[in-house]
């Protein structure tokens, strides 16, 4: 089990966000500047990133960093599970405005796949080249723990050998609409974290360790947001 997050310790506009183990995070900003958003897009490896949602770029950057630390990951059977949804709303909104203004003939076909709720997961899969299932899941209960349970079940039934569970938060104007992990990300907060699980951490004990690490991370974000961190 490894939990990594985008480290947003950005002293200046030229500082580059990095991926760091969750226990070494030095988060210093809550919202990325336009310059840093561009850097994330570049870091993400997402082709034509300007037409993808920023959430896809955040997620791809986090998973790329995660997999650099996971030499044992078999990409042929790695599932991508993105918890929470509505990350597509900013792109859907832009697509809608253009369709309403200019008609169906002038919408951008490159943007089309990114208007779907599944776009974050499949974009990440394309960037890292993983061939297990790539899906977004929306859960009515704490989403990251739920995603962890789903990953455990998929691994136990040999649907996949390992999974990257991903949570992202895009602080754009539409972030109020994004249904990310309930009770986790504060609104208007840029961030991403990703957890790698495989058959070695199927036991309840390992999963509890993972879930507790996630809780600690979310608590850290929450305190940061409150100004108490």
């Amino acid at each position, binding site marked *: 089990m490894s939990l990594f997050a985008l480290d947003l310790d950005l002293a200046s506009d030229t500082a580059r966000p990095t991926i760091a183990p969750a226990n070494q995070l030095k988060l210093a900003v809550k919202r990325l500047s336009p310059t840093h958003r561009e850097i994330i897009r570049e870091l993400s490896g997402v082709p034509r990133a300007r037409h993808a949602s920023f959430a896809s770029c955040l997620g791809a950057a986090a998973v790329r960093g995660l997999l650099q630390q996971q030499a044992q990951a078999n990409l042929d059977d790695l599932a991508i599970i993105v918890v929470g949804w509505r990350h597509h709303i900013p792109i859907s909104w832009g697509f809608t405005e253009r369709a309403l203004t200019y008609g169906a003939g002038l919408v951008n076909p490159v943007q089309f796949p990114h*208007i779907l*709720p*599944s776009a974050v997961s499949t*974009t990440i899969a*394309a960037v890292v080249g993983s061939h297990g299932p790539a*899906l977004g*899941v929306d859960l009515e209960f704490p989403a990251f723990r739920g995603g962890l349970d*789903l990953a455990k079940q*998929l691994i136990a039934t040999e*649907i996949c050998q390992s999974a990257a569970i991903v949570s992202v938060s895009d602080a754009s104007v539409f972030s109020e609409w994004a249904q990310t992990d309930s009770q986790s990300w504060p609104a208007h907060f840029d961030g991403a974290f990703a957890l790698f699980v495989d058959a070695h951490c199927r036991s309840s004990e390992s999963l509890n360790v993972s879930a507790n690490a996630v809780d600690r991370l979310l608590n850290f974000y929450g305190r940061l947001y409150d100004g108490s961190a």
Partner: protein
Amino acid sequence: MNPVRIIGREAACNLGWNWDDVWAGLLRGEARVASFCSVQQPISGLDLQVAMIPDLDREVLDDPPGAGATFRLTRAVLRSLESGTIATKTRLFGASNHGESDALIELVRAAGGAINRPRADTLLPAMASDLVRIHAPEAMYLGGSIWAYSACSSSLHALALAVASLTETQGSEETALVVAADALSPLAVAGFYRAGAIAQRGCAPFDPVSDGLLIGEGAGAIHLGSGTGGSGVTIAGIGMTCDAGHPTLPDPEATQLERAIRKALTRANIDASEVDLVVAHGTGTAANDRAEAKALERVFGPGGVPVTSIKGIVGHCMGAAGLLNLLVAERALFEGVAPATSPSRNALPGVDVVLMSPRRLELRRSALALAAGFGGNNVAVVLKNAN
């Protein structure tokens, strides 16, 4: 380990509001299409034929926010499921391609761009959970639905999550409801139109001259359990892969689709020669059908298994499409007949497509249902007939 059985099912699409009507329409082979212009929608330039449900209320309600046509389709199939079967501990798994995105955006537009966060209990997953609670109050409903989003493969991913959950809770008498729905979305229609994927001459999956898909709308629901009952058809094996390539086009060599099919066969512990029908994704686009035909030919041999697709008749029902394929595969095994793909006489080489009229199945041991989605997801499900 007990096999996961199908113990209840329902569907709605352009052929009717219940599964028996839909099945009868599939056997008749009559595509019911209408102009998308007849649907009140705000995007110009969409003078296209679609497989629409004529009497579906498309008005977006703001109470509860986001309650649009997809919610109404979800409600229709959940209400129609035999309530008597939902009498045990039940979990709900949902799926959609675009969910209520159109409804949410319409609400923002109507509010002049004001953006208010929807309350969690008025979102589609929570509303669907409430429907189950109301519909089957006697059930020990294990609240908290799980929704899967993987474009047009969403419903079979939701099915896989349900089967994995039931496998983990073997012996607990737990059951699972899987529901999937997508109403016609002006955004999706505009996107497919702009991508040049919509049929101009009529949708005929696996016909070499078919030039695109027919967009449809619909919903499906199934109730799964690991005990007794149902049609005797079981979910025997599931394979899931992702091309991880182009955002909209499938891998032309269908390497990962082939892998998904072989994984499903292996998990079902059967040989390809024991599959008596494939209900294919079969969209009618050259890119999909040619790739799918290659994978099927490699797994089953040239013309090695009857292949059918329902999308020329009911249209591409997006997130619900996979579940509708699964229901067709189950009914075909039960009744021993496969609906025809289209009135066409021609099919791509290498695949034995059921054409012109329904075909009797000499054997009905097992069937394969397929779904694929934007971003390259592939799901293959093997059904076994215990009868």
